[in-house]
């Protein structure tokens, strides 16, 4: 069960109406290494992972939904008053035809989100290594989006999200260390 707090994890400010940036940012919404994929990946893997690290996956998976909400707010603000012409000019003509200005879970190239973006191998090390890789890929994606963005307010929020990827990767790496130690202990029986 979740308790919803009606505020964002970090304030989202957008200084200019820029649908083109929304087109790139949607990668972190419905892309392979986006926040939706991250949340669903961790909250699903946690059932079959050793007890000691279930809580970590629950916490990080939950936080990913908070990030998803921030990305949604950013995309919404970037496009909410964009006229069809502006959407077309931003390369979002096909999106507009299908969705008006609504958000949708697809990547920057318009491919819809698919469950094949995530894995659950059932092997704790394999799953945690996938999670570490996912965090590093999300970190890199934020870097490339920051590089393309000239909106300082938006970049501030993106930098926060990128920093969280670093911390999540660190905690997953620590989870691996915990499981490695557990395995070593059995040798003394």
């Amino acid at each position: 069960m979740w308790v919803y707090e009606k505020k964002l994890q970090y304030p989202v400010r957008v200084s200019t109406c820029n649908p083109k940036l929304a087109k790139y940012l949607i990668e972190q919404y419905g892309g392979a290494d986006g926040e939706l994929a991250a949340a669903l990946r961790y909250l699903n893997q946690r059932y079959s992972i050793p007890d000691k690290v279930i809580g970590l996956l629950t916490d990080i998976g939950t936080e990913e939904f908070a990030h998803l909400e921030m990305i949604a707010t950013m995309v919404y603000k970037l496009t909410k008053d964009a006229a069809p012409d502006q959407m077309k000019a931003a390369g979002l003509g096909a999106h507009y035809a299908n969705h008006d200005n609504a958000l949708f879970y697809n990547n920057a190239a318009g491919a819809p989100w698919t469950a094949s973006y995530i894995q659950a191998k059932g092997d704790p090390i394999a799953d945690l290594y996938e999670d570490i890789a996912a965090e590093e890929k999300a970190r890199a994606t934020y870097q490339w989006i920051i590089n393309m963005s000239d909106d300082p307010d938006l970049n501030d929020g993106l930098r926060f999200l990128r920093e969280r990827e670093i911390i999540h990767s660190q905690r997953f790496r620590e989870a691996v260390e915990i499981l490695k130690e557990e395995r070593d202990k059995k040798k003394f029986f």
Partner: protein
Amino acid sequence: MNTLRKTWHPYVSPFDPCTPIKVKTYSTPPNLYMGFQPPGLEQFTPMQALRAGTLWKAFYDPWYSPYEKAREGQQP
């Protein structure tokens, strides 16, 4: 080893169609080096931590666009 950006020099051909990028950089964030986090690391104040995205100074490694910085007349 303990820098947060690494650089490398890609091969530049005399026939490259675009202006060659002579130095490329990539990010090597602190989580790669820490292992299990040791106790007693230095902390941000709570207000700073909320802004930074981490409580721990050792993990703070913000990314700024090199292009944005170039526009401001700073070194990337």
